[in-house]
């Protein structure tokens, strides 16, 4: 018997009540969010609950929404129940001034580098991470480059005077 998105939603609401919000289904994948303080409880429930068993962390990444005041940075988990072959997306939001989120490394060994990458690009401070330092960028870097306040160079700029590579 396949596990349907409705059943997952029911289970989550039964356990967490109105603390899990924002259920939506885009292109067939159930997506929901909760307060960031709850992330370990929710993840643990998703992993351990007998019918859910989302034991595989497919992906973990950050997203920056600068206009979403107080909740600028999202941490997105993609989880997979391989037995039933269902994927879900779970998000927590944090503010960019104090982006503390509990680490998922205790549940998934693979979260280690994914969280380091998210820290590297968005500055999310994963509380309890065993080795939270930059992974792809140089260690001396003092900003978080994937945040939206660092735009890429405007292709149409004309103030550059570069004889060899001028545009």
């Amino acid at each position, binding site marked *: 018997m396949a596990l349907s998105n409705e059943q997952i939603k029911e289970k989550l609401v039964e356990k967490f009540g109105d603390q899990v919000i924002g259920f939506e289904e*885009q*292109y067939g*994948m159930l*997506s929901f969010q909760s307060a960031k303080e709850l992330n370990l409880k929710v993840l643990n429930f998703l992993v351990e609950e007998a019918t859910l068993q989302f*034991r*595989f*962390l*497919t*992906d973990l*990444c950050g*997203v*920056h929404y600068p206009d979403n005041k107080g909740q600028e940075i999202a941490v*997105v988990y*993609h989880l997979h129940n*391989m037995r039933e*072959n269902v*994927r879900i*997306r779970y998000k927590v939001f944090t503010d960019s001034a104090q982006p503390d989120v509990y680490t998922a490394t205790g549940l*998934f*060994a*693979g979260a*280690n*580098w*994914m969280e380091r*990458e998210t820290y590297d*690009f968005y500055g999310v401070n994963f509380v309890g991470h065993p080795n939270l330092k*930059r*992974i*792809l*960028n140089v260690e001396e870097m003092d900003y978080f*480059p*994937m945040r939206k306040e660092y*735009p*890429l160079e405007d*292709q149409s700029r004309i103030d550059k005077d570069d004889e060899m590579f001028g545009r």
Partner: protein
Amino acid sequence: MSDNVLLPSGSIEKQTTTLNLGPTHPATHGVFQNIIELDGEKIVAADSTVGYIHRAFEKIAERRPLYQITPLTDRLNYCSAPINNIGWHLTCEKLLKVQVPKRVDYLRVIIMELARITDHLICNSIMGVDSGAYTGFLYVMQYRELVYEIYEEICGSRLTTNIGRIGGFERDFTNAAFEKTERFLKEYPAVLKEFEDLFTRNRIFMERTIGAGPISAERALNYGFTGPNLRAAGVDYDVRVVAPYSSYEEFDFEVPIGSTGDSYDRFLVRNGEMWQSLRIIEQAMQKLNDLKGEDATVYHADVPEYYLPPKKDVYTKMEALIWHFKIIMGEINMPPGEVYQAVEGANGELGFYFISDGGRTPYRLHFRRPCFIYYQAYAEMVKGAMLSDAIVVMSSMNLIAGEMDA
């Protein structure tokens, strides 16, 4: 006489030796560093540093229209660039709700399976090189060359292919492409057989690889392993089976698995997959021949917003000219939405997490790069092994620096 030379503190008392494998060590096959702590020849700890060729693709993608992101995906796993390209097109098609014709699916399957064969060939033959057997590597290269010629026939380039477009292919396959594929199907099995004869029951190769860097199914899943590395540990997870794309559900193939998850199993699983890929290509060729009428010539879906019109029309027709201009200038707004699309890359599940806010470029694009995720298990896999095992384990994991660093 000058004063005594000062040694770094702790260097005398320390009982172990620190050894750097990389960033430019011949055995790393790419730019990344492994810092290995040795007690004699035994590894007591390992740490990895990646990011030497980080090129900020995810950031760059936030300013580019969809068709300009395809060349970025080439440079992830450059040993099988067509899989990345087509995975990206599938992601876009999912977001845009484009239905592609069956023929496009089959053509894509042919290309993706050829790419998988070349990728596995490189990985397995390099395993031979790293354990002292150069012959196999040189011998199979001529067939990788043949596959690259097929790519060339289709898209004009060999390594970073930029193959296909959203909705299909930019042009139909030439006869030469089909002929070369037929030739590959005819000649390659004998070569693969000989390659297997050279390694599979080779005493030296077996001694080097059996028991080197094993990982249990449970740990592999916990570490987020996918692809041949996970299957070698005994989990039959294959994206082509669990979430079929490009009509993979119509094909009859097996998913080879191993049991111990050591380097030898990884080698065997890849070899097994090459045989299966050949089967898939044969079936796809058959299915192409079975198509009739208009279905037998179509090579792209009808998506005027994203698929460039023929050049002849651009010069003669107003409508085509407008679309051409809008596509090239990236002036087309996408529907808002969030998509996760995964394909079975040659070394694991290659995922694209695409957030569109309705603008012209992705709001956020994240690549789930399989080898970035599974490489973190390396330290655990080589702990307690010999230094020579560390080399074999590294090459058996199929690590591609371009993909790791994105």
